[in-house]
């Protein structure tokens, strides 16, 4: 929209088009950032009713951003995964809305309650406004990740995604364990950032440019790697760089060997924040991996359809270990948040299968691993938010969070809506047909098979079986068991937003099933590797792609 306003003003010169093109596809981020600033300011208001509008303003901002992302189908010139940007941004905005709703009442609950009872408001006592601002900062960063066409940009966007989450974890509850989670998350995250930064440096060293994608046949990392493709293998320094970058980013997606923090941090953070961590940084990490690997391309290997062998093997090991570690460690847990944390680890492993499989022949989602990953992110977003939201909706009478399987026994009986949300989301996470998670996993399976990764797919299947052990506990507990003593002492938190988030997620898990084909096709279109753009040397006007029609979406 802004693009259409600005373009005539600057369109006189060719030079401005590149800038404008970028500004044009950044409209969702701009909208989000404006919302962020608004939220920051509103959070300082002494009027409670004004401060209470923060979630509403955030949701509206996300809605606007999502709308802009949906309508603005422009793509990055020269990007291999042309359609990934609008798809992901829309997806981020859509999943962001339940996440915002879920956050209601998370920070400084005691203080806000005290204010509600008449304590004079002191803006430096309450961090709620800032907390929402951090959330929106992080989502902005995530969207910027999806827009990245440059290593510097990608690095900054990843940091913008992560840094606010460190603060969010630390302040999410006043408890010491939140701060412990914060310090672990932050410090290990800094190490991860250093690792992928070093990787970026190596990529820059190997190619001499930080530009990931460039149109018009300009020199970029993509073209440099394409030159390597002629030799049949990526140059060693580039390989080192890509692998360091991937391993560094593994921290964000909670994959082995950077997964250690996951259970501790998810347990320590307030539950809504855990849900946030399981979606936002993870998505950012996958976006980063997809962008980097799309620059590398899946044109290596004996048949010219796989990643360069060292990268493939690394990802293979990471994927196999991640699924296995996540699932087996979850078996021993009694704490549901830790179970979900480990399951989050395992899901990253599943998704990496799609990354390894690559875009396939571009025919359909069944063989397009990248489309499968994008689709899985969508599915995972909903089912994960739903499962965490149930935990966030319940608390002990002491105000503590619920923790163990005992607490949700017979939940369907004591609280029908939340119980069913838990059952549906867990079943979907397990991949029971016909729920959304089943389709997500199905496409990962088929893409892995069509890429010839039989061993990995077998590991994936085996792990799905192992996962059944603990997911069935999450399904059977609420559904079949009688409510235990601890379950009877629970109460629902007084925040409607959380229940809405839970319900919306569970409904999505079911209601989106008829639209699986539509969504999967959209993901497939977004993740179809476009052949290198026609190398026009003088066609700077060709950079602005005509907006794609929405018919296929």
């Amino acid at each position: 929209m802004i693009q259409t306003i600005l373009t005539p003003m600057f369109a006189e010169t060719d030079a401005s088009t590149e800038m404008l093109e970028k500004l044009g596809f950044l409209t969702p981020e701009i909208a989000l950032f404006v919302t962020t600033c608004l939220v920051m300011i509103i959070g300082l208001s002494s009027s409670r009713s004004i401060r209470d509008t923060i979630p509403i303003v955030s949701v509206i901002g996300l809605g606007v951003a999502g709308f802009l992302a949906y309508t603005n189908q422009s793509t990055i010139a020269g990007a291999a995964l042309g359609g990934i940007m609008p798809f992901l941004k829309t997806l981020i905005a859509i999943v962001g809305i339940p996440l915002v709703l879920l956050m209601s009442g998370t920070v400084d609950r005691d203080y806000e309650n005290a204010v509600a009872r008449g304590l004079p408001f002191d803006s430096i006592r309450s961090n709620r406004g800032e907390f929402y601002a951090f959330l929106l900062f992080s989502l902005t960063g995530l969207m910027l990740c999806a827009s990245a066409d440059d290593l510097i940009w990608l690095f900054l966007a990843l940091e913008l995604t992560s840094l606010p989450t460190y603060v969010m974890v630390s302040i999410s509850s006043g408890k010491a364990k939140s701060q412990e989670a914060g310090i672990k998350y932050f410090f290990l995250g800094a190490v991860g950032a250093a690792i992928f930064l070093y990787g970026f440096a190596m990529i820059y060293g190997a190619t001499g440019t930080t530009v990931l994608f460039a149109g018009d046949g300009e020199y970029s990392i993509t073209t440099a790697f394409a030159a390597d493709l002629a030799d049949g293998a990526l140059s060693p320094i580039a390989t080192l760089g890509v692998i360091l970058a991937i391993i560094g980013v593994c921290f964000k997606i909670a994959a082995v060997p950077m997964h250690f923090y996951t259970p501790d941090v998810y347990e320590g953070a307030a539950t809504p924040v855990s849900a946030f961590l399981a979606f936002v940084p993870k998505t950012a990490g996958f976006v980063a991996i997809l962008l980097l690997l799309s620059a590398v391309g899946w044109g290596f290997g004996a048949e010219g359809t796989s990643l360069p062998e060292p990268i493939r093997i690394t990802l293979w090991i990471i994927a196999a270990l991640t699924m296995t570690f996540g699932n087996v460690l979850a078996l021993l847990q009694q704490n549901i948040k830790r179970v979900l944390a480990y399951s989050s680890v395992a899901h990253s492993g599943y998704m990496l299968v799609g990354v390894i499989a690559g875009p396939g022949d571009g025919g359909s989602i069944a063989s397009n691993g990248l489309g499968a990953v994008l689709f899985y992110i969508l599915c995972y977003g909903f089912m994960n938010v739903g499962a965490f939201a149930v935990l966030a909706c319940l608390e002990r009478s002491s105000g503590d969070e619920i923790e163990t399987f005992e607490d949700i026994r017979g939940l369907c009986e004591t609280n029908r809506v939340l119980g069913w949300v838990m059952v549906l989301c867990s079943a979907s996470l397990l991949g029971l047909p016909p729920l959304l998670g089943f389709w997500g996993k199905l496409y990962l399976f088929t893409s892995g098979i069509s890429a010839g990764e039989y061993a990995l797919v077998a590991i994936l299947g085996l792990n799905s079986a192992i996962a059944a052990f603990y997911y069935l506990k999450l399904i059977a507990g609420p559904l079949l068991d009688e409510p235990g003593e601890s379950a009877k002492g629970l109460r629902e938190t007084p925040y409607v937003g959380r229940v809405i988030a839970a319900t919306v997620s569970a409904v999505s898990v079911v209601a989106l099933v008829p639209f699986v084909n539509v969504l999967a096709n959209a993901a497939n279109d977004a993740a179809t590797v476009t052949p290198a753009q026609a190398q026009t040397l003088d066609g700077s006007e060709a950079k602005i792609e005509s907006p794609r029609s929405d018919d296929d979406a």
Partner: protein
Amino acid sequence: MITSLAHIAEPVTTVAPDIFGDVGVSLYHYLFVSATLFALGVIGFLTRRNMIVMFLCTEMMFQAAGLALIAFSKYHLNHSGEVFVIFVLTIAAAEAALALALVVLLFRRRETLNAEDWALLRG
């Protein structure tokens, strides 16, 4: 002004002599130092207990990446690497601000900077 600057796709200081030869041995000198600093940072992060020093070690790893970026930037005769370092510094500053604030917060709570004292969440 933006429009005229945008003409300049990639300014190059060809005035400066090519400081790295074609062989790359001198480049490797810098890369070696960079890798050493990175490894020392990792070792420091693992061996130290003081949270501030641990974070210093991550700064050292960032610094190692910066050195490598500058070296590559000079080798490739463009400024992108140097610009990257500017942003690395920015991020380092931002991270430092947050990390130090967090460390102080934790210190207020437990009155210790020992990272090993924060190990209640496990398993």
